[in-house]
């Protein structure tokens, strides 16, 4: 990511609302289509909620970093946290064909992230979890017309 927006969040669920505003602002400044903005928002909320809810063993305040970049028609988002090592991609996918009575609620968030994004990648580096997601802007009717 050569040029990016860097935002720091605290490990509190109240930060989710601010996340929404950050994503909206970022999308607006780059003229991203509403559909992609929504999808990015959901994916980031899932990741951030997971880190906030399960990432830390103590009650202390921690910083979670979000990097957002837009280049080559592609949005890249990276979430970095210093919480306990956790690879969300290693979790088994939920059975979305099972009857509702048998559905587990866990695993649904990361399932949505995989479905909504083009690529999701996890790395553990320097005692930190780094989750990188990419989504290419494809169907933007207004841009197609302008071109």
């Amino acid at each position: 990511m050569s040029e990016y927006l860097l935002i720091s969040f605290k490990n509190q669920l109240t930060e989710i609302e601010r996340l929404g505003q950050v994503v909206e602002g970022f999308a607006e400044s780059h003229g991203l289509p509403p559909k992609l903005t929504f999808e990015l928002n959901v994916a980031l909320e899932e990741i951030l909620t997971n880190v906030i809810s399960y990432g830390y063993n103590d009650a202390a305040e921690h910083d979670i970093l979000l990097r957002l970049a837009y280049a080559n028609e592609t949005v890249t988002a990276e979430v970095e946290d210093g919480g306990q090592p956790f690879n969300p991609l290693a979790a088994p996918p939920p059975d979305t064909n099972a009857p509702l009575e048998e559905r587990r609620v866990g695993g649904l968030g990361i399932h949505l992230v995989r479905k909504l994004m083009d690529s999701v990648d996890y790395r553990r580096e320097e005692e930190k979890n780094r989750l990188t997601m990419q989504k290419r802007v494809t169907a933007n009717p207004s841009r197609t017309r302008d071109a």
Partner: protein
Amino acid sequence: MEITEHSLGADLEMRVKGRLDSSWADPLALRLEETIRGGRHRIVLNLAEVTYLSSAGIRVLIKFYKQLQGIQGSFVISAPSEQVKTVLDLAGLGALLFAGTGGDLTPASVAKESRHFEREHATFEVFEYVAGASLTCHAIGDPTLLQSCRFAEEHCRALSFPENEFAVGLGAFGNGFADCRNRFGEFLAAAGAAAYLPTDGTNIPDYLVKAETFVPVVEVLYGLTCAGQFAHLIRFEAKKEALAVALTDLVEVGLEIAGTETAGMVLVAESAGLTGAALRRSPVRQASDPSLFAHPQIREWLSFTAERAYSRSLAVVAGVATHAAPATLAPFVRPLDKHPQLAGHFHAAAFSHRPLKKGELDVKTTVATLFESEVLQGVLHLVGDSREIVGAGQSEFVRGACWVGPITAISAERS
């Protein structure tokens, strides 16, 4: 987030406006819980103006879909916005939750014949439960020993409580008197489950539930046990939530339906507040007492609910009521408020709230489900006489089920 409600025939439509993310999932869940508690079991959630949905929101949708399905209600989503539809389809839930796509639930099975009547504050529906059934009551031990806290090893006996018995009294879970001596407290047993409040200072209620070969056993100092089947099931509902039904009014109706002077009852009901007392110390004779005659006053050992407690819980109440207590029963019952001829002994176990299915209910399944899936919050002896506690009033219930059986035989001990 904004939620508005509109009636759609038998259904309640709730229109939600705003974001359904992890910070708004809880407020929506609370609102749905309130609505279901208010007796609405068919809900249409209109999500036309929900611009955002994440898995936190989906969890709420799944939770209430399952909950209403479990009580033969219905929960469907109408007019989903494009964002809602995208996320629910990705989660593989669209087909289940959207209106008209199979999300609607089958109607309740044909109801058994029942009799309806009304009283000042409540409506009642009475089902024949086990035709002609009756209960046998056993008065165990000597409750007067409580006045001076003089229970000792010779007063303690282990009693098991299978599914067809219920009981109230003082007891504990454990292995004999010596093991339990510092924690005897109020207990209640019903439908194969037993709960008690230990007096060892932890103040955390404990419970046992029947399993394949296991039957709950309680070390009992004294108590009333009833064995047999219930003859009737009474469903009741307060006409207005603010004017809940008092325990004594329910007990009067129960005795009337039973048609006998003495009846046994098990109640599972949404509480509007319980008034009662619980022991703070185990009422056993202390070996270290300098004098056996310097007994503490029992009232100093009781903790009363200063105001009604557990007002948002689902309570299991068990006990015996009578209009004319025979000598065997008299020491075990106390007068109930406002009704000079009405006496009884009732204990309650309060659980976290869950809605009750309407219509006919099975006592074993209903009680077992509570023990297995809800949190036991407390056990207390219900006090019917409000003069004992200034201003606290008596226990009241919004709606629930009461299984009643006429007591046709009372004996001093259990064989």
